[in-house]
């Protein structure tokens, strides 16, 4: 593989990382039965706060913590509004999307185009020396490795732990979870806030690494919606969510490669529409059931194995409220 190609794949992994982190966070939230629609605002606000906190303290760690707190706080509002105040989670999520974006712009007005701290470049020793894969996967800033770890952690939590059973049960059939002694409200609070913290982390992954600093309009505007769509495309499964994020980043990279090539005359601005067309296409792919039909073509033993990976049913109780008896 040529160095150029390796560099492209390397950049795809880097570019997809915030989408991966936000997608995993939202996956956990939605698996618990709640939609956090505010991603496109909360990521932006977390990015701004994370950057300013890092700038003020001189520490990216402080920035990361601040960003995660912002994400968690926004998620907490959604959880409380849904669980205890019984308000429509989509309405609250939408209002928070607008509020967070405006808040970021307002509070961040003194910090646009200010240089500030960034994550260090940290190739992993040994691993980064593995031919091809090392250069693609382990030659990055730390948030990329964190996204790897988060993916496996979420997968392990969801499908291989007792807590994961409870988490999924709360999103699938809360009455059954209640009957087995699970505190449905408490678990929903917990995972909505946890998912929100990861959304905040995704914000920091932008402003402290991928698109460092703060600007108006924010560089990551729109990616929150993409992340939400990727969760659907990903069938609420961490691995597929990651695949979706990489696919997305890959297609974006392809688009910008086309844009650079001298033979093809596509006006530059039109390429900005490409992510959105891709988003719609991926959603159509899922809702048409094409992915599920794919499983049926496989031999039977493999069907069972891929069933979990390729199923695209949302958690059955997603977006519904649980009332005890």
């Amino acid at each position, binding site marked *: 593989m040529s160095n150029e190609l390796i560099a492209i794949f390397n950049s795809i992994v880097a570019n997809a990382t915030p989408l991966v982190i936000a997608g995993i966070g939202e996956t956990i939230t939605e698996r618990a039965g709640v939609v956090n629609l505010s991603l496109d605002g909360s990521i932006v606000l977390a990015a701004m706060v994370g950057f300013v906190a890092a700038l003020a303290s001189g520490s990216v760690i402080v920035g990361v913590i601040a960003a995660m707190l912002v994400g968690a706080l926004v998620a907490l509002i959604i959880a409380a509004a849904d669980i205890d105040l019984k308000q429509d989670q989509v309405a609250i999520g939408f209002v928070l999307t607008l509020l967070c974006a405006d808040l970021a712009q307002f509070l961040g007005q003194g910090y646009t185009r200010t240089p500030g701290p960034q994550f260090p470049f940290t190739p992993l020793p040994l691993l980064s020396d593995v031919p091809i894969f090392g250069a693609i996967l382990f030659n990055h800033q730390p948030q990329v490795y964190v996204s790897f770890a988060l993916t496996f952690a979420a997968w392990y939590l969801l499908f291989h732990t007792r807590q994961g*059973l409870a988490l999924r*049960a709360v999103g699938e059939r809360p009455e*059954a979870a209640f009957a087995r002694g699970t505190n449905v409200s408490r678990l929903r609070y917990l995972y909505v806030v946890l998912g929100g913290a990861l959304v905040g982390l995704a914000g920091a992954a932008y402003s402290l690494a991928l698109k460092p600093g703060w600007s108006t309009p924010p560089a990551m505007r729109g990616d929150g919606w993409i992340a939400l769509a990727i969760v659907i495309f990903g069938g609420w499964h961490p691995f597929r969510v990651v695949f979706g994020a990489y696919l997305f980043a890959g297609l974006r990279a392809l688009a910008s490669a086309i844009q650079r090539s001298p033979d093809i005359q596509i006006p530059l601005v039109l390429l900005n529409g490409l992510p959105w067309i891709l988003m719609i296409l991926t959603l159509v792919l899922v809702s048409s059931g094409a992915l599920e039909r794919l499983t049926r073509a496989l031999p039977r033993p493999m069907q069972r194995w891929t069933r979990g990976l390729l199923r695209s049913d949302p958690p059955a109780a997603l977006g519904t409220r649980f009332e005890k008896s």
Partner: protein
Amino acid sequence: MDIELRHIHKRFGAVHANNDISAVFHSGQIVGILGENGAGKSTLMKILAGFQPPDSGVILLDGAPAAYGSPEAALSAGIGMLQQDPLDIGAFTVIENFIYGSHLTRREAYRALSAQTERLGFDIDPDALVSTLSIGQRQQLEIVRLLALGVKTLILDEPTTGISTEQKTLLFDALRLLAKRDGMSVLLVSHKLEDVIALCDRAVVLRSGCLVGELDAPLTTADLVQLMFGGELIQQKRKHPGTGDVVAALEGVTLRSRRMTVEPFTLRIRASEVIGLAGLDNSGQELALRACAGLVKPAAGRVMVLGEDMTGKPYRAFMQKGVWFSAAGRLEEGLIAGLTLTEHVALVADSRPLLDWNAARALTEAKLAQYQVRGQPESLVETLSGGNQQRLLMGLLPEKPVLLALEQPTRGLDVDSSQWIWTQLLDRCDVGTAILFTSPDLDELVAHSDRLLVAFAGRITEVPDAASVTIDQLGRMIGGAFQ
């Protein structure tokens, strides 16, 4: 474990669901909790199993007062309840369901599951998705799950609804084993006399929220009927088979859903006929019923109404032809929560583009009186009781439809309401309406159908001699055994 209930009261709004109920259940016994729909049996058992708190009253377990506020606490006190719709998680595998809520490791769970199922003669694949199981298998899973959690008292809520005769036999054998060999208390909630007579050592009978009597085995139909209905058991009259013209037909129709395929079959429906569609959950009878109203488009074959080919047309076209469909869940499919009664009537009354609210209100008042709906024209439909909702739905149907396709027309209704509904339906039959209906309740199917069709695993077959078929025979047929 001996259980004693003392002076249990529970009210839901104006309804006194449990009125001063006291009873004792001994270990090693199978006790039938008998009563019509709405008598308060399920409420009482949900109180005992911790799903609902009583308004007042005491529960004594082995003589000691028990205070638990959740099903989990009841479980640790040794009381487990199998709900009518088992409280499992469809997206989980059997083994995940088994583990969730227990303290077993995966390996222990596999061992415990196979040990319990083998002992009770059940057959469940531990790696199957629960959503692919039949109701009977899901019940089996819940029973072994509760046993593994160490319950000493097992409550079963209407477990024989929607399962085949084979599964029922299997279930009853298992329950006898649990009571006689293991000395458990088994409480069987049912409105079916024959089940209680076949299985129970004792019967406790509830009527309108009150405990009206207890009987020890040998139980007889006459005694139980006396207690349940106060003496009069109303036999529904069977109608003569319809001899009119064919009004609707499915000709060589194949149906497909995400879950299943219904193999090609033909069904011709004549005027004034009542046709029952029997079958376990997801056997194909629901699809067939919906296909008759154009709500499921056939993959092959033709749907005819009054001689016209309606294949592929939308439900609205069927409605205009006089074919109406009514779904099992009234507020999910049929009525619209958030709309008033008048708005419902205005929706179906005519098709003029401008609304005349005064006329609609007058029409609503007339309908409410005619169909004995207790409610105001301005009240929201979700504030009506279940029976009144069903009456309203009846009132929204046209006076002389060609065909009524009814999904579980009396689900969740008490005996009076059910009877009222069937009187209304049969009155319409007298003027030529044909009725096609499904029901998980074999009694209802046998009682009202002129013809019976049985669906099993996507095959739909007509019962040759519907007039003489017994409930037991029908139960075998829906389990896949055709004579």
